[in-house]
């Protein structure tokens, strides 16, 4: 039995194929930015080929993420909240809190004893506390996103960034630079600000261990450290934080197939239509 999960996020599309033993056969990450949307299905296609399989061999395909609604080749669509919960549970079985920082939104998910979603929170239509915030500000600073962690590691303190509005924060960063603040401490301040925003949102759920941070920005060790400091507990990061949603989708697919959920009779390997 073979199951696929496809997580179409606002900036990246992620695909995972697992077998009946929940072993990952292939995983792939590709872009979904505005100009790459039509490519979402290619990511699926390449993943299938990478696994040396044919598309027809897949028993169940679950789509998730922002672009999940109109996926012509998926059997079912499930929100990324449920998928992350399932994916993380497979990697870290004792997880109680998941902090997912996405490109366009952030989420906090609380799991119950059974490892399913007990409650969740999402940030509010605003770049603050998301990967986008880091992208914008790192551009202002002329730093590559991937360098943020290294740079912040040099900081001895941090400069407080009080504005969480991305536009205001950009101004603020510029003024702090003009006042002579060190870049390392500004970057540390940014991590501090995002961590504050995200952790505060998640506090609403009642934080218990184990805490897992996932999503693309979880690759930034500086940010993860700032989150851990705020949480006051050690936090875990999956080896491949990008793909936990897709993995969860694939694993949920196995469950659906077991329960004989209705399959999409007209699966077509075609472009995904995004809703407005």
């Amino acid at each position, binding site marked *: 039995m073979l199951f696929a999960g496809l997580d179409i996020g606002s900036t990246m599309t992620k695909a995972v194929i697992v077998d009946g033993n929940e072993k990952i056969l292939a995983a792939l990450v590709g872009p979904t930015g505005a100009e790459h949307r039509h490519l979402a299905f290619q990511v699926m296609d390449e993943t299938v080929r990478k696994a040396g399989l044919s598309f027809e061999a897949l028993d169940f395909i679950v789509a998730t993420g922002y672009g999940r609604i109109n996926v012509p080749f998926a059997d079912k669509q499930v929100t990324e909240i449920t998928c992350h919960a399932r994916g993380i549970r497979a990697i870290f079985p004792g997880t109680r809190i998941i902090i997912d920082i996405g490109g366009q939104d952030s989420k906090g998910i609380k799991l119950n004893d059974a490892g399913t979603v007990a409650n969740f929170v999402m940030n509010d239509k605003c770049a603050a506390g998301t990967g986008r915030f880091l992208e914008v500000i790192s551009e202002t600073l002329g730093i590559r996103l991937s360098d943020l962690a290294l740079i912040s590691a040099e900081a*001895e*303190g941090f*400069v407080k960034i*009080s504005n969480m509005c991305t536009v205001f924060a950009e101004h603020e960063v510029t*003024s702090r630079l003009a006042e002579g603040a060190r870049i390392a*401490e500004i970057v540390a301040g940014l991590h501090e600000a995002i961590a504050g925003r995200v952790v505060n949102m998640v*506090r*609403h759920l009642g934080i218990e261990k184990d805490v897992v941070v996932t999503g693309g920005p979880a690759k930034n060790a500086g940010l993860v450290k700032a989150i851990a400091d705020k949480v006051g507990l050690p936090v875990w990061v999956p080896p491949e934080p990008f793909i936990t949603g897709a993995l969860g989708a694939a694993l949920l697919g196995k469950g659906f197939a077991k329960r004989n959920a209705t399959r999409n009779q007209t699966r077509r390997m075609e472009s995904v239509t995004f809703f407005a």
Partner: protein
Amino acid sequence: MEQREQQGKTAAVKGTDMARKVRGMVKNIYQSAHEAKQAGGKVAYSMIMSQYDEILRAMDIVPLPTENFAGVCAAKRQMDRFLLQAEADGYSQSLCSYARIGLGFDSLRKEGSGIPDNSPDGGMAMPDMMLGSSSVCDPRYKWFQAAGRFLDVPRYNVDVVSPPIRANLEDTRDYYIRYQKEQFRGLIAFLEKQTGRKMSDDRLWESIRLCDEAWRLWYEIDRLRVAVPSPMPSQDHFSIMAAAHYYAGTQIAVDFYQGLYDEVKYKAANKNGVVPDEKYRILYGAGLPPWHTLWIFNYFESFGAVFVIENVYRAYDPVEVPSSVQDPVEYLAWRTFLRVTQWHEKASARSGNPYVEKLLEMAADYKTDGVVFHACRSCRASTLGQTHIKNLLGRYTDIPMMQLTSDMVDLRDYSESQWKAQIGAFIEALAARKRG
């Protein structure tokens, strides 16, 4: 990791000696509540401008103005943990930030079974009751309702009504005053039950006398401020208003304003101005002050621009209650009605808006060169209508006007660089107009 000290300061340099004494008076509000609790007295969460101040004084109830506490937190830049706590509890970031701070404080107190460590001015004592009102805005009664989640104390809210602008006062006066009186009577009955004591009419009259006297002196002080150069700036106003509101109905307020009156009179007579070279006189048109960044007034002063008068906190001039009114509660109801309808007649005759009439009179009396408004993202009551007032004012005066936006306490809504750019442009407009 340690936070780097931010450059610059937040508090403003004051113009008068008396204003510098206010810090201690404000601190004492919280101190005396703690003391009252220890001595077995009653403490009430309260809202200023609820028109009930004298009733509380007459019954020896110590008022704890929860909104002021939020302002204190902001002035000391210690608001974040309270705001964040309230937001984690489910209160939206667009909700009144005073309420968020208060709810956050009470939530933390409940969570930690005691006043949060290092709370500004020692924090707010546990109240015995919460007394909100519908005066000024909606959160001022809803907040205490919501605070029941964290505080197991009784609440009592009163309506404070004011007739709509086009209402005929002859048709409405009687039933407005009747309702107001009944609302106060209800409050008194509640307080008598809480304290187990009857209110004395004599003590209420005495408290009213003191309150009216303080407000009369405050009015006289503001009249002195027409002087050029300005003897007392708006940053002082935002301090000294504490006496009239947080010490309403006490001798302390009367003494304070007597001292301030003497000082301002001296300064005016000796042409002792706020800045050596007063170039522009600014009217603070509307909006709660930016408690988080009061030094901004000094920033204006660095361009020779002084805020000389403001249309906030001293919300009414003294009024004349008919001498036929013999009952102190009825007096309070009458005074409320007269206060809130003070500008109705003038507004009906011209702009249709009482604030516009008041501002026009101020602009003329105080010879102001410009008007500045402060819009607060989380305050509907003090913000909505500012643009309308600004538009209307523009029909009767050509002085430059500007609206700055942030919040009364939430620093996340404030952008220093944006403000400085806006202020720079405004000063240029003032200069251009002066050149003619």
